């Protein structure tokens, strides 16, 4: 029975872990996209100074 409880606990922890990992991958993807957009915005900012200063 004890083994049973331990096994269940382990399963729950693993599930939590894998949810975390999935969420983490999403984060990384979003962060990459964000960095990409920032640099695009900056470039456009330089390429289009009239708009920026207007």
């Amino acid at each position: 029975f004890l083994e049973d409880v331990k096994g269940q606990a382990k399963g729950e922890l693993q599930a939590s872990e894998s949810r975390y990992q999935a969420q983490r991958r999403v984060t990384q993807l979003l962060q990459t996209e964000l960095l990409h957009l920032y640099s695009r915005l900056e470039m456009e900012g330089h390429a289009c100074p009239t708009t920026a200063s207007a």
Partner: protein
Amino acid sequence: AYYEKVGFRGVEEKKSLEILLKENPLDVEKLSTFSQRFPLPSMYRIHVWKVLLGILPPHSDSHSLVGGYRREQYQDVLEALEVMRFVHMATPQTQVYLRMFQLESQVLPRRSDTTPPDEEDEDFLSIARAMEEIVEDSVDCYWLIKCFVNQFNNKFGDSIPHLPKSLEHYLSVEEPRLLNHLKNTGALAMLPYSLWFRRCFAGCLPESSLQRVWDKVISGSCKILVFVAVEILLSYKIVVMGTSRPEGVVNILCNMPQENTDAIVTKAIDLWHKYCGTPMHSV
């Protein structure tokens, strides 16, 4: 002889704490009682705080696993703030902690929002600056600030508004003349209550004294804050009695000299034990 007695007591206390810390799982209640009664030896302070604040679970076997989770959580939140340019290389560390705390509590303001920090943010920053002086590791430091602030607000949020009344009460017992002077000059209403009761004396007492007060706060008492305030007033009685302008009184109390604060805290703890009793069970 006095030194010997104190030294001996210190050794005994340290031993009994070491026994408590060897238990597995840790008995959090006993650890609370211990830190209510005795000062924590500095080599164990941070560890005990982490257990009392739930940063580490009672089971010592889990400490390295959970410690790893805590570290990752810290890094995840910090990384996101860096990517989003909420913080950069030059951001003061306490400001970083504030942003991390706000992100986790879902109250992070927009980056374009340039409103200055509100009173609550300033309280957080004061506590963070003090904790930074006490704790070296930044992961530990962030977690301790976060859990200290959260626990303080959750546990004592409702009691804090009543502490000034409580201060008035104990002052009327200990030194009615001083209380009358404070009342008559209008200084009573202007005392630095938020520095005392919201920042828990962060920025008021030097860290070496402050951490002995925080031992009591973290282990479950906010009443101790009242007695520290009483002892501060008592120790500046003569100057305060000689000042009739309330602003003058506030100025003295907000810019206390950083000496003798250890004695003030020791007296405050004695007074607190006198009025509220010494927690007796076990240890």
